[in-house]
């Protein structure tokens, strides 16, 4: 198959980030104490090895990106789909729901945080009835909360204590 031999910026960025990661690992490894204790290798040797491995992979991927893109990429088979209209807004809603839940869970308790997450994600996936979604979220989160916290002993932040 013929492929236009042009640089693929996204793929080059992946290669570059792998090289950066490799450099960061190597810099980090150079700061670990070389003292070995009972072992022959110190704590820094294996991270160096991973850094070298990542560096080699990063350079190879960058070379492929410069030479016309990944070999055997999904695009050749037509499997890659186009971005969906409204997908970005939806993804923002889901991201916001997860972030809100993460930041508020210890303050407002698991049930409310999970219901907010449920409502935001449902909105992101196209539901347009926020009040109903929130109610369904509560109806789902309450029994799940009881099941996990009382039934299984998983510690989840409670509704009431978080307020007091």
């Amino acid at each position, binding site marked *: 198959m013929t492929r236009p031999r042009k640089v693929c910026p996204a793929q080059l960025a992946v290669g570059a980030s792998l090289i950066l990661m490799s450099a960061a690992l190597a810099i980090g490894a150079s700061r670990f104490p070389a003292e070995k204790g009972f072992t*022959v290798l110190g*704590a820094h040797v294996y991270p160096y090895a991973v850094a070298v491995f990542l560096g080699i992979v990063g350079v190879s991927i960058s070379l492929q990106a410069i030479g016309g893109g990944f070999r055997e990429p999904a695009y050749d088979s037509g499997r890659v789909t186009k971005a969906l209209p409204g997908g970005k807004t939806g993804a923002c809603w889901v991201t916001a729901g997860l972030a809100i839940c993460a930041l508020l869970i210890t303050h407002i308790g698991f049930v409310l945080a999970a219901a907010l997450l449920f409502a935001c994600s449902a909105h992101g996936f196209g539901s347009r009835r926020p009040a109903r979604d929130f109610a369904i979220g509560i109806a789902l989160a309450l029994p799940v909360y009881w099941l996990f916290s009382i039934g299984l002993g998983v*510690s989840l932040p409670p509704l009431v204590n978080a307020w007091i």
Partner: protein
Amino acid sequence: MPEILSSLATGFATALAPLNLICGFIGCLLGTAIGVLPGIGPALTIALLLPITAKVDPTGALIMFAGIYYGAQFGGSTTSILLNAPGESASMVTALEGNSMARHGRAGPALATAAIGSFVAGTIATVLLTLFAPVIANLALKFGPAEYFAILVLAFTTVSAVLGSSMLRGLASLGLGLTIGLIGLDSLSGVARYTWGIPELIDGIEVVLVAVGLFAVGEALYGLLYQGEEAGSPHRLTSVWMTRADWKRSVPAWLRGTLIGFPFGSIPAGGAEIPTFLSYSAERKLSKHPQEFAANKGEGAIEGVAGPEAANNASATGSLVPLLTLGIPTSATAAILLAAFQNYNLQPGPLLFQTSGELVWALVASLYIGNTILLVLNLPLVGLWVKLLRIPRPYLNAGILVFATIGVYGMRQSSFDLLLMLAIGWLGVVMRRLDFPIAPVIVGMLLGPMAEKQLRNALSISQGDWLVFVTQPISAALLALTLLILIVPPLLHARGIRLQEHD
């Protein structure tokens, strides 16, 4: 041999205890129910249910996870056939052939051959597991750190080469996993590595967090950005029963599928994709009715469902061999199961058969029981599973995210972990978009620390002599095999020969 039988009998006694039987039943039910939902494979199902380990005793929990493991695969084939929505790449063939049968009014026989085929393959594979696992475990007891390190390197290579379309991208994913695995305290010297002073990172990053982030969150976001709702509606169910001709064509396909699937699962090579595709192409070549295959624009051939489904299940059971005997997971699901073992401070490996023999044999016995439960449970309940699919997409996805949150938060009660899960979810979107495989990340982060420990132990024993890896026959052979796997495909490729079909 008599020892195996008596151990197995003890295992059955444990697994058939009422409480454990209930655990197995719940596992099969949950696994099927969640596996039926599109986009959720066995790995994610187990990851989401890991908090259960907090309360249930190890034997009960592992029996439940075994049920979930089988159940999720079972459920996956139901959706593939009825909705053409394969939850994982290994069910792609089932979707191709089975959905074609369903569209031509033969959903019943397609579901039945998948169900009975899974039972037959699962049971035969469990017999093979029962016979071979103790032998391999005994062999593995002779492994020193050098041999272990060599076999881990082999597992790294094969897993990243096999899962995904390009070895280089597989290796990049593996490198990412190895890097994540470095974060936290060094197990031998106690030095904190790559924690940037963040206290939450000192314990390292949980495998389950990464799996849930990549699979659940990443999948949800990717679905929003790039994939619309799958077109398709449930098909009217015809009679579930197979005709005499269906049986005659299915039985040999089940047996062939099992024989292809089990070895692929049990060598540390990973992936159920290759055996399912191999079985499919074998059935197409051997069939007396090639014109019926969907690939040949036919109405769907029953062998094309029976063989690959059997291969899929046999390879899933097979992957328990390296997991239980060597502690090496060869698939994302096996990796999560390993995490479940580790939650109980159990380290799968040759010693597990000696230190926790009762548990291992109960688990093996539960595989026989789980297979039977699934068969009994699923044939009558197919109609119910199809109703589950009517849950509107927004609620389905929102519900999955709520469960993901419980799973991740429940492990350490940390908001930081939830934010990390979100970030890893976005990383998963980028990886999917650029066609990087995800399973090697999980495998790398689990096996990386193991490999480091074995490497350092091996060098300590040899007093710093690196030649130890090439002078000992087993490790030298394993490393040579690794080298072959790395070198041969690109060489063949350069000469214009392709090993895999890219379709």
